[in-house]
C-alpha cells in the first residue's frame, strides 16, 4: 500500500536498529558543530550595516549651507501608495529652506509605510531619502509617526560608506530605552 516497502529483511532491520542511515547526515551536522559559528551576535557584539541602496527609515536633507531642501511640493505624498506622508506647506522667506515655500508639517506614518522608496524617487530636490536606519521597534503607537524635526537630524552613516558588512557594536541601556552603538572602524564581511 502506498508504495511503502513491506516485508521482512534482516539487513534492513539491523540498519534500522543502529540508525546507519543517519550517520551520513549526522556527519555533516557534527562537522558544523565543530566549525566556526556564522551566527550574527546582534545586538550585543555585532551589527549589520546595510548596503547603500537600503530603504530604511526616512530622513530629510539639508543643503551645504544648512537650508532645508524640502520645498513642500507634496509630490512625495502624491506618489506614496499608502498615503502615509502628510505635508503642509507654508511661506517662509527667512532662509530656512532653499525656496520661499517650506514645510510647516512633514510627517510620515511608519506603520503604514511599505518602504518602497517611491517618495524618494518622487522628490525633485532630493529632500526626502530612505536612510540606513532600521531599528524602528517601539512600544507606543505615537512614536511610529515621525515628524520633520526628528527627520532632519543628520544620518549616522555617511552616504559614501558602501555597507554590507558586520561591525562591532555595543548594546547600551539608558533610561530612555535601549540603543545599539556601532563601531564603524572595525568591520568584517559576513561569513557565508
Amino acid at each position, binding site marked *: *500500500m*502506498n*508504495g*511503502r516497502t513491506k516485508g521482512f529483511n534482516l539487513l534492513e532491520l539491523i*540498519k*534500522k536498529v543502529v540508525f546507519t*542511515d*543517519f*550517520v*551520513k*547526515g549526522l556527519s*555533516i*551536522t557534527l562537522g558544523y558543530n565543530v566549525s566556526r559559528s*556564522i551566527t550574527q551576535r546582534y545586538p550585543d557584539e555585532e551589527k549589520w550595516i*546595510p*548596503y*547603500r*541602496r*537600503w*530603504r530604511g527609515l526616512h530622513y530629510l536633507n539639508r543643503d551645504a549651507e544648512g537650508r532645508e531642501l524640502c520645498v513642500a511640493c507634496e*509630490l512625495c505624498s*502624491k*506618489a506614496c*501608495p499608502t498615503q502615509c506622508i502628510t505635508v503642509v506647506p507654508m511661506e517662509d522667506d527667512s532662509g530656512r529652506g532653499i525656496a520661499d515655500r517650506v514645510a510647516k508639517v512633514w510627517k510620515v506614518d511608519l506603520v503604514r509605510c*511599505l*518602504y*518602497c*522608496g*517611491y517618495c524618494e*524617487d*518622487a522628490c*525633485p*530636490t*532630493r529632500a526626502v531619502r*530612505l536612510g540606513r536606519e532600521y531599528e524602528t521597534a517601539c512600544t507606543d503607537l505615537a512614536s511610529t509617526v515621525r515628524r520633520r524635526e526628528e527627520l532632519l537630524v543628520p544620518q549616522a552613516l555617511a552616504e559614501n560608506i558602501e555597507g*554590507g558588512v558586520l561591525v562591532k557594536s555595543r548594546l547600551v541601556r539608558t533610561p530612555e530605552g535601549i540603543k545599539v552603538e556601532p563601531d564603524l572602524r572595525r568591520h568584517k564581511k*559576513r561569513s*557565508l
Partner: protein
Amino acid sequence: MNERDDIIATQGITIHMGPQHPSTHGVLHLVLDLQGEKIVRAEPDIGYLHRGTEKIAENLLYHQFVPYTDRLDYMCAMSNNLAYVQAVEKLLGIEITERAKHIRVIAAELSRIAGHLMAIGAWALDLGAMSILLYAVREREIVLDIFEMLCGARMTLSYLRVGGVRYDFTDGCKEACEKMLEILPGRISEYERILLGNRVWVDRNRGVGVISAEEAINLGLSGPALRASGVKWDIRKDEPYLIYDRFDFDVPVGTNGDCFDRYVIRIEEIKQSMRIIRQALRDLPEGPFNVDMPELVPPPKPDVYNNMENLIHHFKYVSHGFKVPKGEVYSSIEAPKGELGVYIVSDGSEKPYRLKLRVPSFHNLQTVRHMSKGMYLADVVAIISSLDPVFGECDK
C-alpha cells in the same frame, strides 16, 4: 485499500488543523474528517490573510501597485513584480531593453532559488529534520544579500518597474552572484546527503500524496507539483517570456507524482536556475536598463531640476501616472510555485478598471483534498509542505 477497515470501526471525528498550527505554513485552516487516524475528507478553509489586493489595485496608479505585489508571495517577491509589470507592459505594447531583460531573468531566477530553499527548509522542519531549515535559510541569506545590494530590500523588493528596473545591476551584484553560484552546489549536495540518507524523511514522503497527471491537470495544479506528476509544462519553455528561449536549461519531470518527486523537482530546479543565471550573467549586455520613454520612466534626477521639459515629465509621472490603452490582457509567468497570471482590464485611464490575479498557491491548495484522501493524519503535513502554499498569495 485501508487494510483493517473491516475490523476496527471507530467513530469518525472532525478536527481543525490550523490556522495557528506550526506546520500549516502560515494561516491555513484545514477541516479534517477522520476515521481513526485516516483522512476521510480534508477541506481547506482559507481567507485569514485576505487584504483585498485586487480591489486595492483599482484605486492605485499602475506604477504604484508594484509594492503590493511584493506582499503576495513574500518568499519570492521578484516573481510577483515580474508577473505584474509584464502584464502592464503587454497592455502598453512596449518592448523593454536587452539589459533589462537579462537583469529580470537573473532577478527572477534568484527569487526562485530563494523560494525553493525556503520551501525545502520549512518542509524538512515540518517532518522533523530541523537542521535542514537552518542550512537552507543560511543559503537563502546569500540570495537575500544580493537583493539587498541590488535594490535595498531583502524581501519586499519592489525592484521592477513598468519599462525596466529601478536600479542598475552593478558589478558588485555580478560578483556576489558568481560567488553564490560557487557556494550553492556544494551546499545543495549536503542537503541531499542529509535528506536522502534520512530514512524517516524519505519514508514520510515516498508514496504520499500521489496525484495522477490527469487529475493534476483537471484541478489546475501547476509548477513543480504538476511536473512531479509527469506533465512537462513549464511556461518558461512552452510559452517563453523575456528571453528564456535563448537559454539552455532542462525542465525536470517526475514520474510518481508523490511528495518525494516534488522534493526532487525542487532541488533540480534550483540547479537549473543556477544554470540560467550563469548564462544570463555571461550574456549581460551593456546599455540602458529602462525604456527611453519619459512618460513611463521619468528622466534621472540630476536632469530633472535643470530642464523644464524633464521636470514636467517628472511631475506628470508622479502625480498622474501614465495612461494605458483600453483593452484587456492576460499574462503569466512561471513563478516558483506555479503559474502566476495577471489579468488586467483597462478602461484607458491611469488606473486598472479590474485586476485579477491567478495565484498558484490558491489553485494548488485545492488538490490537498484529493492527495490526502485515505492517508494518515501525519501525511497531511507532508502534503501541505510539498505544495508549498504561501498565504500572502493564496488569500490575496
